[in-house]
């Protein structure tokens, strides 16, 4: 492969420095990233070697169980991972973490006075399938307050860390829920200037994929950069 990458699509990304999100003030770089005219190496487009994962890693209603089921609304979160040419990205590592149904993370620095759930860890992971699909079973997270400004509440969200074919397909993001009344007030969600672009972060309720007598389904399709990086096995027709 050659040196192809030539920068991120910044119009699709949040502003790096965003004063409404206070933590950016001392942490966001002040200088623009150096744009390269090629020169990196294969790491740009190489999927790291991920370990084999257990199926239960993707079921957050099971992987933290101690003596019973976690409390809250069980949901399915599923979607497809694709590149910007709409081709499936397979073998990508997808890791999620979230608050429990009452809006509390198990992280030890979390101080929000809401109950922990002894049967809910709040973290899971899977590798995307050959068609780019992924599927988690979890509990719908609660909203929680944070100290960014007066009466600041994070909309309910699930954190996603995705690592596909190399550096170009690294993405850390958050999935939100449709109809959440706190979305207009959240500086993190609103850090992406274009409304149509940031609305890509809102999952879609799917009645078709909702499992009867069992769980609502939310669909969250993810588009990664680096179409050039999506590997195809030699001999396959990839038109």
């Amino acid at each position, binding site marked *: 492969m050659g*040196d*192809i*990458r030539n920068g*991120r699509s910044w119009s*699709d*990304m*949040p502003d790096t420095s*965003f004063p409404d999100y206070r*933590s950016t*003030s*001392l*942490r*966001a*770089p*002040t*200088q623009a990233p*150096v*744009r*390269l005219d*090629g*020169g*990196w*190496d*294969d*790491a740009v487009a*190489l999927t*790291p*070697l*991920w370990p084999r*994962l*257990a199926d239960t890693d993707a079921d957050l209603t099971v992987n933290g169980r101690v003596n019973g089921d976690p409390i809250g609304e069980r949901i399915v979160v599923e979607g497809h991972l694709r590149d*910007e*040419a*709409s081709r499936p990205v397979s073998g990508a590592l997808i890791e999620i*973490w979230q608050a429990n149904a009452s809006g509390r993370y*198990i*992280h030890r*620095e979390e101080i929000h006075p809401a109950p922990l759930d002894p049967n809910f860890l*709040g*973290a899971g*992971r899977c590798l995307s399938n050959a068609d780019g699909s992924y599927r988690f079973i979890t509990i719908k997270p609660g909203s929680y307050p944070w100290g960014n400004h007066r009466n600041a509440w994070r909309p309910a969200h699930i*954190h996603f860390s995705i690592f596909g074919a190399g*550096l*170009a397909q690294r*993405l*850390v*993001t958050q999935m939100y829920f449709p109809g959440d009344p706190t979305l207009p007030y959240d500086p993190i*969600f609103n*850090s*992406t200037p274009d409304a*149509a672009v940031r609305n*890509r*972060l809102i999952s879609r309720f799917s009645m078709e994929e909702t499992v009867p007598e069992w769980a609502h389904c939310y669909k969250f399709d993810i*588009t990664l950069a*680096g*179409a*050039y990086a999506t*590997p*195809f*096995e030699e001999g396959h027709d990839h038109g």
Partner: protein
Amino acid sequence: MADLPGFGSMDLDDRGGPHVFVYEDRRSVPATAGLTPSQTVGPFFAYGLTPGTYGYPHAEIHRSELAGGVQPDDPHAGGGYVPGAGTHLAVEGQVFDGADVPIHDALVEIIQADADGHHARARRNDGFTGYGRYGTGSEGPNGDTRFRFRTVKPGATGPGRAPSITFIITMRGLLNHCITRMYFPGDDHTADPVFNQVPPERRSTLVATEIGPGRVRFDIHMQGEKETVFFDL
């Protein structure tokens, strides 16, 4: 530490043998879908992404030891990898904010080639994966905030290229992750195609400092006079 049921095994995927991949030229592939925007990793990723380095009781699938050679007296030993070929290397450093305060909740990932300059493309007997993760502040509020990787010094990945380790940094307060590259002191960087594209006055931010035999320090400054060069990748 209790192992939670079902939370992962450490088996590396053997991937069923070597695959040959073809990478297409981006310019021949029209974009048909808008990208999913980035969002901050937030303050609470530790139990999900780096549970081991923060002491959370979950099976960890990423380690900070990329190859063997962990020193017997190293308190962070226990990677379980057999020693790989090459010169053993310890990389440590801190991530500083704009007030020069070390950051205790940064996610640091590294990617590197092996001692021969090859990226890992399939499971290897020496356990080398070329990828590592560390959460700073892993020793708690009273500990220090250094990240520490145990690895081997990478070889050059091509003619003219100087050996380097790629760093991906993300944390609360970063809405987009940052990518940088660590070079080694004493190497010849004059022909390196990435190093050469950095403004000369900022190049020193990319070169580690030797702090002992087989040990280098690479501090990352998010802001200020020593602001680290990040790349648009």
